[in-house]
């Protein structure tokens, strides 16, 4: 499973529904995730990709879409 598929799986698990957005569409503006689900998503990403996301990176801009999350994960790998 590639990174984008893994990220999509995490988002679907947190939102409880299939993800129908394009990779560059906002997960927040579309209502897929709220602020608290975002926090859970960060924890899930840390676990799934074996990375540590520092407090300084905890901004919604970095996690606003599947594409941005993928780019962030790539930058941390």
């Amino acid at each position: 499973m590639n990174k984008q598929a893994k990220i999509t799986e995490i988002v679907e698990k947190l939102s409880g529904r299939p993800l129908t957005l394009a990779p560059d569409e906002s997960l927040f503006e579309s209502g897929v995730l709220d602020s608290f689900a975002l926090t859970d998503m960060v924890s899930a990403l840390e676990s799934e990709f074996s990375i540590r996301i520092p407090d300084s990176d905890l901004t919604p801009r970095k996690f606003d879409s599947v594409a941005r999350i993928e780019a962030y994960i790539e930058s941390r790998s």
Partner: protein
Amino acid sequence: MAYLRAFGAYLPSRIADNAELAAGTGADAAWILQQTGIQTRRFAAADESVASLGVHAAKDCLDNAGLTPRDIGLLLVASSSAEHRFPGPASAIGAALGINGLPAIDLPIASAGSLFGMALAAQLAPAYGNVLVIGAEIMSRVVQRHPSYRDTAILFGDGAGACLVSAEFGFAEIRDALLASDGDFAEALRLDHDAPLYMDGRTIIMQASRKIPRAISELLGRQRIPAADVQVFLMHQANLNLITRVAQSLAVPQERFFRNIQNYGNTSAASMLIAAAEWRAQHPAPLAGPVVFAAFGGGLHWGALVAK
């Protein structure tokens, strides 16, 4: 050593429910309740000031302690909504209490202000004796009830809380405190001159959801206190969902976190002490376990304090 001796609180009499906020912001009343867990807030009257709210809370606290203003050695006042750039409300509160001449220090650091004040009071009590810490806010005057600002307008309320920290005795000894600040996110929650309060809610939730439980865990860890042994967590009442989240992170039953945000909304620096005053009034018996205080706010500033 320093001890918690008493708490006090004051809430303005006017109650603003979600229907009133809905009418002013364009939001739906049911949506406000679902998003925030807040049912009502108190709004100060036109002739009330941050200082006058603080004076009421101070007198309530002193009554509960069985003391008079002349027994105070130092006054610390936390507020982020004071009417002037300077002076802050501390000296006015001191004057109203009749203790001119004693040092009265303002702590304009928003929602974590009372926690920082309590931690400072614990350090300063051996030198000053009884230290009165007050958190007082009129947040209703710094949020704008316009649809574009509804996310902040629906959250905040007015009120004041107080805590007397004594060098001599009290119902619990302040054992330790952990304070922290992070200026990288100073812009995420701020009140500029002549502008309504600004909050990047998503960033604040992300930061608070991680920083608050981590601070509590570190504090309890160095005091070798299991979270499960804590009698009550008295946290800044910012958001009901955030309080629930912190409880989950610490694997502590939600009921262990005292909550009154549903009645008063987020009263910033005042909220933790208002919660403490209500909790103590309901539980006047000797403590059955440690008490943990925690707060987070603009700055960013956050931390935790434990007493037992």
